[in-house]
């Protein structure tokens, strides 16, 4: 930390941001005991001597948590180490019943990786310093009880839930970039099936280390650590606020204090929580209750091979394999469930772009309308069913507007597209004679607009076509209607 000389008022500053992300692993049980990790259970119903820190209780490491953490290490391009060590991080807070958190310090499970991606035409790489395993703390309830002015209530259901902490290098350069990176990281964790990405329930949390320095400087400014960022929007807004706060202090020639700051969502600002210089002495030492964690290199490799395709690679593949526009590919790969749905639909439809359009259009609208996720939508509208609908449009059996009607009737009904079209008589009328008859009927019913067209006021054409579509309940093949209407209007008056 080099101290910055008081800068001239107009000097440009560059933000330097690193993130520490905590993610709950999707195991059924806690990291050191067999209690459930399920969210939302009645208080203290998922506790035992180990996660309550009762004397004499000993931790036994959950193998699945280790596998998940190793997966994260691989997915973030890190080296996953055959030997890692657990350590005690000592501090006192009532939600930490042992008086220490079992974490990893000197020898974390995975180190030295990075996430590389394309952003606005340039390649960005955000370095990952480490990924380590640790246990979550319990939950303190400070408000809402008759004696809350003198008592804090404690629920230890979350105590011992397995977490990974991911620490990035200070490679991020703006609040927007930090928010976007956090979102990418979330997509990766969700795609590899280790985290549910649920920030509201706190299963994914982020702290940001923020400092500013004179633009072009090499050293780092004094940093503040911002806690309590539980949404992309908060990450973005809190960092933005903190950058402005630090820049304005430096412009006034005021020294920045190394400290922990809390993001106050309501007030939209960060406030000082504690001075880091005095509070951060955790007196780490190797956890005597847990021998070293040894992973066979073959096992490490085996875990690597179970990794699914990562979101970025999948996005690239969607562009090359399905010839989708960048926009479609980015949207469809936001969740692996959505991407899976697209691939299955594209295969059933044998038309990838149409599948993409339906999913981004009508299906997304329907999901928003009903407030459901893709998982439920997939049951209500299986990929084969949507694919069948697309094939009917492509083969000319139904028109696009009719297809939307068929979609509505199919959704949640378990009916196939062909069945709805058949049952409701919605097949496109491409019978030449039938459409021609409808055209002449419309001309007979609307002599005015027909005469106007023939007198050169051709804008009445759309109205007349519309009348044919209306008369056929939208089933007439639009190109055929256009064609036959034009021919009828341009033939000598009254002759068929």
């Amino acid at each position, binding site marked *: 930390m080099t101290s910055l000389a008081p800068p001239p008022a107009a000097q440009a500053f560059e933000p330097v941001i690193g993130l520490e992300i905590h993610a709950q692993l999707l*195991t*059924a*049980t806690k990291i050191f*005991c*067999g*209690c*459930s990790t399920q969210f939302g259970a*009645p*208080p*203290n*119903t*998922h*506790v*035992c*001597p180990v996660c*309550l820190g009762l004397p004499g209780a000993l931790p*036994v*490491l*959950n*193998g*699945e*948590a*280790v596998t998940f953490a190793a997966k994260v290490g691989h997915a973030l391009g890190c080296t996953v180490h055959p030997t890692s*060590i*657990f350590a005690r991080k*000592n501090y*006192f*807070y*009532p939600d930490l019943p042992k008086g220490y958190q079992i974490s990893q310090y000197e*020898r974390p499970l995975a180190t030295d990786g990075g996430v590389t991606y394309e952003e606005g035409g340039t390649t960005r790489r955000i370095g990952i310093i480490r990924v380590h395993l640790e246990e979550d703390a319990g939950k*303190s*309830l*400070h408000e809402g*009880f008759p*004696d*809350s*002015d*003198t*008592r*804090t*209530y*404690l*629920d*230890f259901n979350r105590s011992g839930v397995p977490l990974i902490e991911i620490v990035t290098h200070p490679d991020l350069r703006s609040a927007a970039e930090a928010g976007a990176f956090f979102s990418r990281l979330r997509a990766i964790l969700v795609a590899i099936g280790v985290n549910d990405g649920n920030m509201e329930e706190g299963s994914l949390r982020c702290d940001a280390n923020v400092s500013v320095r004179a633009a072009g400087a090499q050293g780092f400014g004094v940093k503040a650590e911002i806690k309590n960022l539980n949404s992309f929007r908060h990450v973005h807004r809190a960092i933005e606020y903190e950058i402005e706060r630090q820049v304005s202090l430096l412009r006034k020639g005021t020294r920045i204090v190394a400290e922990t700051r809390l993001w106050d969502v309501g007030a939209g600002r960060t406030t000082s929580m504690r001075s880091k210089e005095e509070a951060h*002495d955790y*007196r780490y030492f*190797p956890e*005597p209750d*847990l*021998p*070293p*964690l*040894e992973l066979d290199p073959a096992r490490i490799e085996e875990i690597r091979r179970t990794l699914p395709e990562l979101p970025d690679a999948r996005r690239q593949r969607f562009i090359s394999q399905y010839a989708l526009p960048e926009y479609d590919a980015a949207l469809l790969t936001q969740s692996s469930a959505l991407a899976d749905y697209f691939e299955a639909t594209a295969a059933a439809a044998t038309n990838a772009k149409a599948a993409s359009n339906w999913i981004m259009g009508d299906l997304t609208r329907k999901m928003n309308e009903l407030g459901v996720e893709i998982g439920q939508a997939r049951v209500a509208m299986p990929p084969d069913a949507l694919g069948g609908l697309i094939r009917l449009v492509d083969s000319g059996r139904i028109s696009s507007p009719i297809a939307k009607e068929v979609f509505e009737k199919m959704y949640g009904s378990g009916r196939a597209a062909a069945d709805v079209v058949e049952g409701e008589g919605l097949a496109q009328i491409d019978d030449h004679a039938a459409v021609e008859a409808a055209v002449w009927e419309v001309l007979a019913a609307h002599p005015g607009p027909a005469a106007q067209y023939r007198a050169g006021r051709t804008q009445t054409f759309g109205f007349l076509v519309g009348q044919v579509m209306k008369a056929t309940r939208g089933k007439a093949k639009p190109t055929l209607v256009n064609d036959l209407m034009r021919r009828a209007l341009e033939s000598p008056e009254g002759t068929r």
Partner: protein
Amino acid sequence: MSSRFSRDDVENIARLARLALTDVELDGFARQLADVLAYAEHVQEVDTNGVPPTFHPLATTAPLRGDSLQRSLPVREVVAAAPDGDPDAGLFKVPRVLG
């Protein structure tokens, strides 16, 4: 062996560990801890290049547990065993701490 454990060091550690020590104890622990440190420094004179670090006294590795549920404790009994708690709400109580 020049490094010493000062009274200030001991006071700082005692504060972090929430230990209230008397003046006599502070002096006594400063002396004892200085001895421990001196011993550690003595050990450090040994050339350990190529010797893997010892993180644990037992030459064993962490056994891994399957991810299977075990029965948790009955909440009423657990809360009742604490110095203060609300068994109906299933919550422990401690003197108020500021969030």
